[in-house]
């Protein structure tokens, strides 16, 4: 399983390195979303600082939807799907591989977005650094969910639109937990039980993914 995971992960990352989708498109999209939110909220200082954590997570969420639909698109064509199925890779491994690759990309994304928060919403940098553990957990959850749901819609013409619809509600808890956690950390407290919530979600989704990815991808 782990060998396959490494293999698949390497493949996805290499393709990313070729196409630079993340670097040139997903990350800018995230930053952009942040800016737009700032615009939508209007100029008022307090409103911004107060809204900052929520917007950070919203941006991360939406960008991660893009990232996952991209990661799903890699195996979108009939041909490549057949390839993977005929390789007899361990399904759990494939899932983990894709999830890890996605997670790595999301980490980069999260980093950039936090920088954006620092600059755009003038939040305290030191406190922001303390949110790292939350981000790690959240990213794990996001990656797991994104990969799993990506497989759900793989190969359907409409995956572009279907994926966000399916993923976002599933990710809402991540949004809430992340937002509250970040907020309390920025407010000077600790992440408290939100970190636990995130951890639980990450573990659950990863486990579910490893178990269910197989039946999802290839029957019997």
């Amino acid at each position, binding site marked *: 399983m782990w060998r396959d995971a490494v293999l698949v992960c390497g493949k996805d990352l290499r393709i990313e390195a070729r196409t630079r989708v993340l670097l040139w498109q997903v990350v800018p999209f995230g930053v952009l979303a942040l800016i737009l939110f700032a615009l939508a909220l209007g100029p008022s200082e307090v409103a911004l600082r107060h809204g900052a954590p929520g917007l950070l997570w919203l941006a991360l969420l939406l960008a991660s939807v893009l990232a996952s639909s991209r990661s799903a698109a890699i195996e979108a064509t009939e041909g490549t799907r057949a390839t993977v199925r005929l390789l007899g890779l361990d399904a759990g491994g494939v899932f983990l591989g894709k999830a890890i690759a996605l997670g790595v990309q999301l980490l980069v994304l999260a980093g950039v977005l936090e920088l954006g928060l620092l600059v755009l919403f003038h939040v305290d940098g030191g406190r922001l650094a303390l949110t790292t553990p939350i981000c790690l957990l959240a990213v794990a959850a996001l990656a797991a969910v994104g990969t799993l749901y990506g497989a*759900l819609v793989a190969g359907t013409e409409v995956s572009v639109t*279907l994926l966000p619809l399916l993923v976002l*509600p599933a990710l809402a808890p991540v949004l809430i937990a992340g937002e509250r956690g970040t907020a309390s950390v920025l407010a000077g407290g600790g992440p408290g039980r939100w970190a636990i919530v995130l951890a639980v979600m990450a573990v*659950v989704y990863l486990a579910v993914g490893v178990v*269910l990815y197989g*039946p*999802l991808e290839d029957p019997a």
Partner: protein
Amino acid sequence: MSALVDRVLGWTALGLVALTVWLGLWVTPPDELQGDIVRLLYLHPALAWVALYLAFGLAALCSALYLWPRTRAAKWDLLAASTVEVGVVFLSLTLVTGMLWGRPAWGVWWTWDARLTSTALLELLFIGYLALRRVPADPHTRARRCAVLALLACLDVPIVHFSVQWWNGLHQGASVLRAGFHFTIHGSMLWTLLLSFVAFTCVFAWMVRRRYQLAARDAALEDTELHAALVERRKEGVR
């Protein structure tokens, strides 16, 4: 036989609902805080309960049974689909009655209370399920995907239930549970409340049954259809 069961089930459901309505509207007293609007108590919780636990619980169960190789059978897929469809109806009604209640009780149609929000999300999750079902795909694939999705969606049910406890610290505005406890649960009210649960359970059972029969009939139709198609297909050869 099954037709008989249908009729019995249908009429009992109707009768119980009628009884609930009668008790709820005429026998039980109005609430001193809320007046007659409190009579939604005999509608809203029952609907919610059926949707959350019966419908989506069953959906999860059937999906699991479908995914489990040893018990895999098309009927589980069909049953899951039927329960989800009915469940979505019930949950929509929950939302509507809840809003109708919220207007007088809280002064707003909607507030971002944790339970309300999580319920709305649940609704959307299962709308997503129905959307996925619509996507043209090989039936097995579709069944598998929908089963997985249903299981994932049901993870939200406990969140809905415990949302009140978990988030009450963080959410202002009247939480559903606290609102619930304000009632001076009068004997007749209690009985009517319980009756409403039974009544709507019957309604649910009847609807799902009908829906499932429909789906099953479609499947069966497909089989006869398949026979004709096979004959047609073979004819292509002899030209």
